[in-house]
């Protein structure tokens, strides 16, 4: 019986205290924020020459991906979708490409690129386009009001405040730091004053 008690105690302890760390160690990137809410009433279409461009501020260093929700109505778009990231003075610094074939209607889509090391607090802009798509293969992005990170967007020769509800992803400095952050955040919520008060 002792063996069973030990084995169960160890396996449950592993599940609760070790496995979360192992899972954290497999993360290649972490989001800087939750995706801002959007109601879907305001959308812009992307196809052919009609591309979308937006300015934003990267919250952290090692920017390595931009994620947002994209509509692919009736899953018609099976063309290439190109994401270009621009730095200061509109210099192209990163490019990522996806295929519409892999994008469901309303999916959260990540454009992943090689990390930009000193991106913390800096302003960038990006474009999303699907040049080979016709009007029947358009993609749609959602538009929200400006936030401290989402500045303005450029669409059909006009600039407007706000942009798409994006999430920036950043490469962690080290795996150990990442694991420590996960456990620290977990404990700090667990021990936050008054939260577990009965």
């Amino acid at each position, binding site marked *: 019986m002792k063996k069973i008690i030990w084995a169960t*105690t160890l396996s449950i302890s592993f599940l609760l205290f070790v496995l979360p760390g192992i899972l954290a160690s497999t993360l290649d*990137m972490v989001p800087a924020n939750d995706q801002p809410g959007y109601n879907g009433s305001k959308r812009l279409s992307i196809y052919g020459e009609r591309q979308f461009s937006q300015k934003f501020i990267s919250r952290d260093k090692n920017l390595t991906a931009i994620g947002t929700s994209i509509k692919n109505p009736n899953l018609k778009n099976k063309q290439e979708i190109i994401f270009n990231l621009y730095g200061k003075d509109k210099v192209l610094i990163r490019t990522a490409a996806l295929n519409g074939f892999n994008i469901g209607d309303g999916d959260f889509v990540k454009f992943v690129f090689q990390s930009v090391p000193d991106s913390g607090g800096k302003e960038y802009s990006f474009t999303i386009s699907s040049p080979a798509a016709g009007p029947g293969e358009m993609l749609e992005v959602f538009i929200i009001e400006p936030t401290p990170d989402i500045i303005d967007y450029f669409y059909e020769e006009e600039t407007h405040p706000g942009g798409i509800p994006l999430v920036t992803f950043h490469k962690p400095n080290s795996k150990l730091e990442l694991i420590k952050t996960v456990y620290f955040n977990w404990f700090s919520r667990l021990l936050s004053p008054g*939260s577990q008060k009965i």
Partner: protein
Amino acid sequence: MKNNKLKILILAIVLRVLVAGFLFHPDIKTYNFQASFLKKGVINIYSYLKENKSTLPLKDEFVYFPLTYFVVGGYQTLVSGLLGSGFDSWLSDAGSNSVVKNAGIFKYLTVLKLPYLFLDILVAFLLMKYFKDKKMGEKVAAIWLFNPFTIVLIYVYSNIDMYAVLLTLAAFLYVKRNKLLQASMFLGIASCFKLYPMLFIPFLFLKGKDLKEKISVCLIPIFILGIVVAPFWSPAFVQSALVSGLTTRIFSPGFTIGFGESIIVGLFLLSALFFYGWLFDKEVDLFNYWVMFLLLIFSFSHFHIVWLLWVAPFIVILAVKKPSLSLPLFLWASLAMAIPLFYQDRSMTISLFRVYTTWYDLLPTPFVVLQKFFDPYNFQSIVHSTLAGGTLVMAYKIFKKEGGE
């Protein structure tokens, strides 16, 4: 010695409380949100949810039977002081991230899962009662309290089936004492939580002494279920609870025999066991039939992981009754637990850890990881086939008359 037992019990409770507070399956929030309407005086939850769907933050139907609503809702009312003022807004929060980032989640999960702890300990107590031999009784309770399978099934997946499991086990203890009427009453009450205990009724029929008792033990559970369900009978109840995917999955068609007809594997196996007991078995031992039927159901149908709890107490009894089966049963349980972990459903695996961090949303499920080098459906089929093969051999071993053991 007594002190030692107390320490072991405390350890069992501590492990359970930790799992309850740290791992989160979203079902517990969904059915507690629905049951919270009892505090507001809603009696018929089925039609209430249907009529108010457009204005409610969570749109799911209540897929459980009426007693579940009243017991969960009643408990919530009882402990509302412990849960605090932020609890109701947490329940109605539809944001997947804000729900797990709420610092109160540890307390909410622990308090909401406390009834399971009580039922769990009660199951251990009933299992002890099964054996006259004190040592065997202690062994069966220890195996129940210290196996990772039931801890995960009950506290990780927030298993509402625990109520039906306890009542079914109580029914079985009455069967063992040849008190079939009481057993059928317990099965009836259990069915008011979840429909599966009804599947044991044909075997109670086999055990009845005479025709009068045979008919009584079949009618009593149906009558109890009928009384509880009748006030709620409506299209909303039928659609949400009675013919929900969970209730009917066992009886989904297996293989076609042409012209629109199919053989339903679950029903086929139930029928085969019933006729075997009727025509061949002179001394029907209901334990064998109940455990065998459940093992067969899991071997030949696509099951939800929480259903495995139905068979867990019987497997533990079997492992103590027939020690030579304990390792094969451990393997069987491991295979059975492994299959749902490879379903394409995040809440079976990665999402359970979202209380630690929502960053885990970026991780692939075991299904996706496996997909990179092997077909996950093929893998599930391989494991399920192995499970089915093992079940058939164990069936032979279980039904083989004593002597070899």
